[in-house]
């Protein structure tokens, strides 16, 4: 870690002001659990670290009328303990319970987890399956970015250099209340996933009314399994249908060979995990 300056932002307004001034030199830090390793293996240098950890107004979980609202500085520990999350976004609760270890969960935040845009980010797959929306603010205004358009590549998001995530919204869809998340890692603690899956399924009279499936660690960004979703939608939810639909998962993903697993293995396992997640979500 060579050349850094450090600024403390005490309020949202102050953070936006600093982002506006520093532009590309900005590097927001909250829990710092991603930024620190980056700094230490020299992937980041010559930046202005903007500490937003203490901005209390951005740490909340609110139960809105048709959606829940999550502040970006909500820690993973907060998510794990929240009754609102448990009720309306169980996939996110599952992800929080499987996230690294309790010490890291006390520091890491949901905003940082998605802003870092790791293909393996544990909260990214649930937010995709739950059809979340990122609210981003800069000095020039506010915009809403659907999760489907948020991730552009490894560590790349749709956020402009001067934008700050100020809220994450999760709609209260019936399927979201029955959602779940499954992660396969090399060990239970501190593990970066080999494959992770989140699924939200809404059934009406035995038929699939709505389904959203998202996978992590199988492409440059967390991705939706849209072909499998299309094969399920509108049909009667049976083990046979499920068996057929998950065969299509491999077509929506492009996993690579890396230190954790081979691409081939990931393809096989992804289909199995999607099947398990949908069974759990649909009580099959």
């Amino acid at each position: 870690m060579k050349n850094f300056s450090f600024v403390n932002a005490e309020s949202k307004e102050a953070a936006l002001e600093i982002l506006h001034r520093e532009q590309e030199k900005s590097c927001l830090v909250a829990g710092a659990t991603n930024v620190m390793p980056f700094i230490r293996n020299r992937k980041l240098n010559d930046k202005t670290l903007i500490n937003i950890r203490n901005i209390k107004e951005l740490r909340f979980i609110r139960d809105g009328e048709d959606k829940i609202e999550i502040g970006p500085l909500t820690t993973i520990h907060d998510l794990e303990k929240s009754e609102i999350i448990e009720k309306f976004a169980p996939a996110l609760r599952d992800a929080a319970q499987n996230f690294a270890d309790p010490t890291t969960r006390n520091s890491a935040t949901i905003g940082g987890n998605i802003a870092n845009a790791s293909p393996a980010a544990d909260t990214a797959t649930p937010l995709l399956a739950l059809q979340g929306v990122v609210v981003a603010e800069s000095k020039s205004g506010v915009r809403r970015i659907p999760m489907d358009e948020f991730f552009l590549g490894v560590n790349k998001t749709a956020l402009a250099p001067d934008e700050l995530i100020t809220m994450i919204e999760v709609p209260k869809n019936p399927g979201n209340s029955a959602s779940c998340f499954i992660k396969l890692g090399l060990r239970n603690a501190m593990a970066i996933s080999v494959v992770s899956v989140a699924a939200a399924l809404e059934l009406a009279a035995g038929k699939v009314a709505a389904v959203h499936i998202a996978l992590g660690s199988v492409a440059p960004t967390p991705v939706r399994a849209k072909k499998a979703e299309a094969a399920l939608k509108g049909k009667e939810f049976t083990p046979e249908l499920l068996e057929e639909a998950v065969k299509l998962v491999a077509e929506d993903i492009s996993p690579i060979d890396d230190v954790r697993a081979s691409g081939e293995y990931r393809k096989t396992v992804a289909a199995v995990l999607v099947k398990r997640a949908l069974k759990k979500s649909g009580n099959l």
Partner: protein
Amino acid sequence: MTKHEIEIIVNGKKRKLTVKPNDLLLNVIRDEMHLTGTKYGCGIGECAACTVLMEGKAVLACMILAVSAHGKHITTIEGLAQGDQLAPIQQAFIDQGAIQCGFCTPGMVLTSQALLNENPHPSEEEIRDYLRGNFCRCTGYTAIVKAVQSCAHQEARGKK
């Protein structure tokens, strides 16, 4: 790099320090305050040997910039005992033989204390889950879990 004046309350004592923006809380605790009970293990948030309590919550000191800890209350392993009187969790580690080489012990003890603060009567499964990030390369996990359990039972008896 510009230096920053910070104030951290460590084990109840206010400490004024001058740090660089890239100084780790871990290094400041060890090298500036000479509280070497907090261990430098992996340095990348994998082993939890550097665990300290910040505002009562277990966090990894190798993942925190000292400058961002300004104004915070930190408890290190040196701050658990009251004078010569060990904290119950420390005594429990000794009684159960839960210490082998000792390198992971400060982190283990502090993470266990954080668990007991949150949940005074954890089950074995809850203990194992809470300590999942703390590595013991002597693999003395069974005795460590027993120590936390015995402590939970003691507290339960104490309350009755």
